[in-house]
């Protein structure tokens, strides 16, 4: 169910230089949101910036009825978002879009490859797939960023008691290098079927996809496009997806059929 809500901000914390987490109280969303879904956030009632922006669901607390998003302050919208005060309302629409489909195979190892602010939806997914005290579930996370302070959710991932590896370009945390280095190692050492889920900068995701496609490993990708409406009506967010038509592709809405697509069906531009 998609809602349009004015929800109170219950927390707004700075995680790093330009990284912030906003937590709002929205029981319906906390209950119904799935890993990979997003919310359309309104800047403010003056409609300037005019359009909403999509932000992925990060941490949900169904008991408290809250959920959070993480944003990197990098443009007019997100820089302005920093002024939102606890107690003020945030206008949101969602949860929207499809979500990651965990591989049903019980023997499958679920590998999440996150880059920068691509981590939130994968944290949500990892949390759902992790099995706390049990040890029979196989979840691996590779979380990369340029430097330690741009890594989202170090504490949170660590708490999940799953195998998490970090990579940073400058080596300030975990492996020095990029996520694909870690991914290759992981795939080489993996026994049994592997299923990859990725979200991050497009360049990173393309590299991850290249590896998976080359090795015939199933991979789900959360694409980032502009989302003028986020509702599936404006057709301003479409991506080329292979089909049987004469052209060999059709334009699907990354806000509606997506944002999560199968790696092998995406035609990158």
């Amino acid at each position: 169910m998609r809602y349009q809500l004015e929800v109170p901000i219950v927390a707004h914390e700075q995680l790093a230089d330009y990284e912030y987490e906003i937590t709002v109280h929205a029981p319906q969303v906390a209950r119904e949101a799935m890993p990979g879904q997003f919310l359309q956030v309104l800047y403010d009632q003056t409609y300037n910036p005019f359009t909403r922006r999509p932000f992925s669901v990060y941490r949900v607390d169904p008991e408290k009825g809250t959920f959070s998003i993480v944003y990197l302050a990098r443009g007019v919208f997100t820089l302005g978002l920093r002024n939102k005060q606890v107690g003020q309302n945030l206008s949101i629409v969602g949860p929207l879009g499809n979500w990651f489909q965990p591989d049903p195979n019980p023997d499958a190892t679920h590998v999440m490859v996150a880059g920068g602010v691509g981590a939130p939806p994968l944290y949500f997914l990892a949390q759902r797939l992790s099995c706390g005290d049990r040890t029979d579930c196989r979840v691996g996370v590779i979380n990369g960023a340029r430097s330690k302070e741009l890594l989202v959710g170090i504490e949170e991932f660590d708490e999940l008691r799953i195998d998490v590896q970090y990579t940073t370009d400058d080596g300030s945390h975990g492996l020095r290098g990029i996520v694909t280095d870690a991914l290759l190692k992981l795939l080489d050492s993996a026994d049994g079927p592997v299923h990859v889920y990725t979200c991050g900068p497009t360049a990173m995701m393309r590299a991850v996809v290249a590896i998976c496609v080359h090795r015939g490993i199933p991979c789900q990708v959360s694409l980032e496009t502009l989302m003028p409406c986020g509702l599936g009506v404006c057709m301003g967010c479409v991506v080329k997806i292979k089909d049987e038509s004469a052209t060999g592709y059709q334009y699907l809405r990354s806000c509606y059929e997506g944002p999560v697509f199968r790696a092998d069906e995406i035609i990158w531009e």
Partner: protein
Amino acid sequence: MAVTKPDLSVTLGPLKLKNPVMTASGTFGFGQEWAEFFDLGALGAIMVKAVTVKPRLGNPMPRMVETPAGTLNSIGLQNPGVEAFIAEKMPYLRQFDTAVIVNIAADRMDDYNTLAERLDGVPGIAALEVNISCPNQECGGLEFGRDPALTRQVIESIRTRTKLPVIAKLSPNVTDITVLAPAAADGGADILSLINTFVGTAIDIKKRTFKLANRTGGLSGPCIKPLALYMVWRVAQAVDIPIIGMGGVSTPSDAIEFLLAGASAIATGTINFVNPHAATEIVAGIEEYLAAQGASSVAEIVGTVSR
């Protein structure tokens, strides 16, 4: 305050609607996506995304640019084509107690004719809105709507091919819209839709390229409201057929401005993206206004701005 609830129903020539608020073509899809926000029966009418004879892939990305108080779009009429529309979209739309207005687009006269004939008699369609005003570059085709003779021709030929009310959707990209409007009326249009988008563009100064793959697009949103309102007012003086006003309508007060200027009904467009409940809030706002003004019907205030 009027004691009795004002009557919100409106009559636009042959078209009767439960209230004067519609959702503009291309900003509401085929309705499905909205069902979770509110009962589609709350709308006076749904104007569906443009339908063409054959399916259209639409333009390459990027298709949209954000501008001050608006957006530029060049979607390129992506749609499943008239057959798929009838087979897959109409059954869903028929379920609701609201008028379905089908927006038809083409770049050749024949295609307009084909669409008119094919849709005539399809159950559940309340009217055809003829999109003769899609900005050139956006539709690839000729913009019929910029030439009075062509405008009249297209409408005439559609008129002879359908029993449905014909709505001519006019382009604002003209020197004098009070010349185009009568042409459409003479062609047999029952109703006019004013307005479609203004042609505009935006440039990425780092890449030194256009921000839209298609280079140019149509400007819409609150930024164009003063221009749309002016055109509605001018056309209301120039023709006797009813007008559906659109162009930046975002709030009840915007909608009421259009009614006072002479529109018999209005449509919400781009604002639907930002405030999915804009249309229903406007229905409520109009009712409140009528009551406050002691008006018992919408028609009572249409065109009553003092000159």
